[in-house]
């Protein structure tokens, strides 16, 4: 029971972090039709910027400054990079973001080295929030939960209540109409791209020290975010939310589950297990399978429900 509860909470905080990433990706995708391959790169940059800033002036300023800087960088990238390749179509745009991702992946070790940096949890939050029987729940996890939920509520309010939010929502479904009504669609795109990258940066700031800040972190989380976008249904924020939580929780649980198929059959002699290859297949632990699970979920989803959880049928 304690295992269940702590894993659930851990999964929830991880899932919400994933949503912070996938929401930006989804917003950008559904508005501009661009799959931003460099999205996770902004996550990584967020972590590194936060590391740099927090070692100079502390964690709390970093929490604000790093996402802002990255939002600005994202907006500039949209304005001066993406928009110039826009005329060549979506594949060109996708390739441009791939190029950016490649560059970031090389520039980061160029500046900060190939090893993980010591981006630590701020001292104020380095305590145990509560203990369940013998397992403790760190306060920083609680803080992550808080920031993610706060961000989500803010995003929801902005999207549904503010004027710009309404324009964005309209542009999601009818981009030509919004343009025809005299709104500056390119500027809306720039704004959305900037907000998306700022969200990714924020996720990096609070995720970088909860996990590890290293040059491979973008690649590690990047493909999972894409899986979420597909599983949730491309362009659907609700779908991305559900998929983020589900995948976050599944991954947290599967990492912690130290069972294998052969444990299931332990005691009963199964004739199958005389074959060596099968035996080694059966002895794979669920925790070892953990990295495969998101992709398995995605492939299964594609076979049984190609439009994703919340996607619209074409």
């Amino acid at each position, binding site marked *: 029971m304690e295992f269940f509860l702590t894993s659930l909470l851990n999964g929830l905080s991880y899932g919400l972090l994933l949503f912070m990433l996938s929401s930006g990706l989804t917003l950008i995708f559904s508005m501009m039709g661009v799959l931003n391959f460099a999205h996770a790169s902004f996550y990584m940059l967020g972590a590194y910027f936060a590391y740099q800033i927090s070692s100079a002036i502390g964690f709390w300023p970093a929490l604000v400054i790093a996402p802002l800087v990255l939002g600005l960088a994202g907006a500039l990238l949209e304005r001066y990079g993406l928009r110039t390749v826009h005329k060549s179509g979506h594949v060109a745009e996708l390739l441009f973001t791939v190029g950016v991702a490649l*560059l970031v992946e090389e520039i980061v070790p160029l500046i900060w080295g190939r090893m993980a940096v010591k981006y630590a949890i701020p001292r104020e939050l380095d305590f145990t929030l509560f203990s369940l029987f013998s397992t403790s729940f760190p306060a920083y996890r609680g803080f992550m939960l808080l920031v993610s939920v706060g961000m989500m509520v803010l995003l929801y309010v902005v999207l549904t209540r503010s004027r710009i939010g309404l324009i964005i929502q309209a542009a999601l479904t009818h981009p030509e109409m919004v343009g025809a009504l005299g709104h500056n669609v390119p500027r809306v795109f720039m704004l959305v791209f900037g907000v998306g990258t700022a969200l990714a940066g924020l996720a990096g700031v609070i995720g970088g020290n909860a996990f590890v800040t290293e040059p491979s972190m973008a690649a590690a989380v990047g493909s999972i975010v894409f899986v979420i976008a597909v599983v949730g249904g491309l362009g659907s924020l609700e779908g991305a939310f559900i998929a983020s939580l589900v995948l976050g929780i599944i991954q947290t649980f599967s990492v912690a589950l130290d069972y294998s198929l052969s444990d299931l059959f332990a005691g009963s002699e199964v004739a199958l297990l005389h074959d060596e290859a099968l035996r080694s297949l059966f002895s794979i632990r669920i925790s070892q399978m953990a990295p495969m699970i998101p992709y398995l979920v995605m492939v299964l989803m594609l076979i049984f429900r190609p439009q994703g959880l919340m996607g619209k049928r074409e």
Partner: protein
Amino acid sequence: MMNNTDAMSLTLGESKVRSRRWLVWVAAIAVPLLLPLVFRSGYALSMMCQMGIAVIFALSYNMLLGQSGLLSFGHAVYYGLGGYASIHALNAIGAGKLDFPVTLLPLIGGVTGLFFGIVFGYASTKRAGTVFAMISLGIGELMAAGSTVLPGFGGEAGISANRVTGKGLFGITYGPPVQVYYLIALWLVVSAILMYALTQTPLGRMANAVRDNPERAQFVGYNPQRVRFITLVLSAFFAGVAGGLTAINYEIVTQEYLTAHTSVTPLLMTFIGGAGYFFGPVLGAILVTFLQVVLGAYTKAWPLYMGVVFISTVLFAPQGLAGIVMQHRQVWSAGLMRRLVPAYAKVFVPACALLLGTICLVESTYHLTTEAQAGTQMSLFRIPLDVATPAPWIGAAALIAIGLYFFRRSCAAAALSWEGITAELQRRKSP
């Protein structure tokens, strides 16, 4: 009909092409066969082996990207699985459990690629565009993650084998590297001819049609999904062949073969070379491999340079090298090349300054952050530099700033003279 070769036209005058095509193919076959007579060193030979394999891999990738408009991030799946199957087969041959000539081993890789192409292609080719890209990425990651836990992949060490199985035919044991080179060259020539031939079949043409307009393809009787599926399966076959050749070449197959990094490599090669032309990926594969091997020996920052080359191609030359070559071929045959030379010369000088400054900046930073234990002394192009002093930094910054300023100005001038030439070409065409 002179006006057939329109500036926009991708197809050249038929008869002209047909007479030249033979020449091109004779050269394409002769060059790989004659190369080892010129470049005899082990270093050159191993680079040429890598190039040959890369060309097959990139050509198979371009069956998707250039010919069918499918952007794949998971081509390593077929390459890697082809490699694993081949290395297992090689071990079985060595152990006497399997009687199969090593010369045909890449066929096992190819068939494996084909098989997994059928399995994964079914799910991935339902949609094109961005969705296909994501699904291919997901399948690629699935296999990459799977290879670390599933049996048969040899864990972190990978699986190694000995390509010399003892049963040499006519003295061909594949012990000496030059024999391996000729094996690769043979498979390269055969694969390239087959892949070219494929572009000239009903399926190849319909792949182009589906790339351009999948909806219209449906209204001329074709199921776009089926066209994509068959193309992917065939492309997976050739990727598997490349994987099989790599297994023979290195005598080891590791998880590295299945990673996203391996999937991105043919993308870089194809796009830098030019996806719109059959020979584009050939140029790209040769260039990228060359840079990889040569630059890789000098600097650890080579992937960064590669990234810069790639993103510059996306931004400024989306047609790739082949596109640049073809554009200039027209100018050349019209005898207008010398009009471009002065403008190009003016671009060249600031471009060099810009490049030099960037290299200096990157290398100095690299030295400072990743090789700090080696002290602050380094040498760049045989010039000793001390990265602890401001000199290299100021020098680099100055080179970049001045270079960039004049580069932009001269580029604008070059673009103007290029426009003049295009206008001239147009005038000559329309009587």
